[in-house]
């Protein structure tokens, strides 16, 4: 592989990650249905939905939940094309590829036969479809939560759910410093790219890459010292406090009630 191709791939990968999060932060401010809901209500009901998707045993509840996801997405003023691209682009497609052999190897009653041999079994088709729908549904809820909720609100909701404050603090700071480190490594790749003429061997590229990682690690170490001292000088004593001004309103209760009914119906349908 040429040096340029490998560097370009890394630069575009990192830039894409940064961009996708910035887009998400913009969407959080749009005046849509989900954006207006209390983050606690969203975190709890979405978790319920994800568990329900996990428990579902047939196509109907999974398809109905996907229809619900699309409706809620539209009501939250998220562009449908953007949303579908975001959820389908990688993992569900990967899942389909994984599920294809299952069509043929799962034992069961024949669905498609050719030359008196069972090619595709009914069970195989069902398991592939279930896997695909389940993965898509579960992913959608995670994506919707992040697209419509500010990260600080998600953290505050986690704190309200009694997640240890140490973990919540770490999560919050990690998110902040991921951007710093991504920017800094992106600059390293860009600097390298701008100095590169012609191509390098994979070996040379790997060596450069491990040195870049090593340097980033040393930088992280220094950074953590500086940040710690900065925190200390602002009076940090190992505890943080969050301003929690959440208030459940009428529409939040309405949403929770709706979610509970939807979840109960979906779970009840497992018994049919």
């Amino acid at each position, binding site marked *: *592989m040429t040096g340029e191709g*490998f560097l370009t*791939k890394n630069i575009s990968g*990192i830039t894409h*990650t940064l961009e996708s999060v910035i887009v998400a932060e913009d969407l959080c401010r749009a005046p849509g249905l989900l954006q207006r809901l209390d983050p606690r209500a969203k975190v709890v009901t979405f978790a319920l939905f*994800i568990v329900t998707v*996990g428990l579902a*045993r*047939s196509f109907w509840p999974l398809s109905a939940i996907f229809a619900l996801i699309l409706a809620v997405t539209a009501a939250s003023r998220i562009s449908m094309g953007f949303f579908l691209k975001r959820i389908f682009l*990688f993992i569900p497609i990967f*899942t389909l590829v994984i599920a294809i052999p299952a069509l043929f*190897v*799962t*034992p*069961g*009653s024949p669905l498609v036969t050719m030359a008196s041999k069972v090619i595709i079994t*009914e*069970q195989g088709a*069902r*398991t592939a479809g*279930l*896997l695909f*729908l*389940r993965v898509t549904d*579960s*992913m959608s809820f*995670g994506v919707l*939560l992040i697209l419509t909720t500010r990260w600080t609100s998600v953290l505050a909701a986690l704190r309200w759910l009694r997640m*240890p404050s*140490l*973990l919540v*603090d*770490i*999560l919050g*700071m*990690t*998110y902040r410093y*991921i951007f*710093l*480190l991504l920017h800094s*490594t992106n600059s390293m790749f860009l600097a390298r790219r701008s100095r590169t003429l012609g191509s390098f061997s*994979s070996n040379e590229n*790997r060596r450069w*890459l*491990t*040195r870049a*990682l*090593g340097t*980033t*690690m*040393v930088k*992280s*170490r220094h950074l*953590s010292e500086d*940040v*710690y001292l900065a*925190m200390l000088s602002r009076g*940090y*004593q*190992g505890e943080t406090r969050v301003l929690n001004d959440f208030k459940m309103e009428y529409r939040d209760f309405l949403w929770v009630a709706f979610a509970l009914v939807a979840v109960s119906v979906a779970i009840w349908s497992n018994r049919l």
Partner: protein
Amino acid sequence: MHIPDGYLSPATCGTMYAVSLPFWFVAIRKVKQVLTTRTVPILAIFAAFSFVLMMFNVPIPGGTTAHAVGATLLAIVLGPWAAVLGVSVALGIQALFFGDGGLLTFGTNCFNMAIVMPLVGYFVYKVISANSDVKSPRRTLGAVIGSYMGIIAASGVAGIELGLQPGLFHAVNGTPLYAPYGLSVAVPAMLIAHLAVAGPVEAVVSGGVVAYLQRAHPSLIKAGAVGTKEGKLWILWGTLGVLALAAPVGLLASGTAWGEWGVDELQTMGLGFIPKGLQTLYRWWPAPLPDYGFPRMGAVIGYIMSAVLGMAVIAFLVWMLGRRLVRRTSPAAQVASQQEHTG
């Protein structure tokens, strides 16, 4: 190796959360002891580093790229418990923001990549590097082999988790409800991919970074490796790592027992006979036996309960063992025991 939601049953996910919980608990305690108020900034920034490392595309022969996890590398530089937390946080952000790994499967992914991987990797690294000099090639070799073993162990565990699904969770007509491939497919598939591609990438990255740090910043390796606060506790970490590995094997064993139980149950359920060859067939592939309708859910719940109970017992024993070891090795305890002897 990031397992998305939908591949594992909620019961498996719950079990794996329960299995990971004691490790997180111990890790938080250990890290707080050493880092005190530094815990948050150091772990946060190294979790961010771990995230960035997972984003790096490493060129591999054949023209494509792969990425490393870096759990063993983090364990070498920060110590294994800090690595457990750092990688867990990085995985959490990956799952939340990028849908890379699910939210129900988060506990499972953490067990594989943030617990098994760094603990096994660090154990092997410690065995190989022992008390060698900071710049010794033994440390580089330890990082290479340790990280390789770590990722292989993790992928094997992931293969077992995925492979258990079709046998344990299927519809009445035999349709697998979650990941469709049994152990005989899932485990080799995971292992081969990681033995051939992901393992070498992990080894090259970890070995390369450790070699660079040895040359340019030996203090970083030193701080992680020779920290007196850790003492001989690496034996305990190793034991934990091995136990962590053994846990899913236990799952596997109880899975087979469950299969045998099913056949016994056939007889008592008034079937009166077991068709010839069914017994052997059943053991290898429980799925094609849909029409006898045994009380499957009860068996699954019982199996999960016993697995959780087993894990809890193991975790408790390890914890007790750990306390004993800590008491023996910590200076305060030594002073205390000396006082006991003199007094």
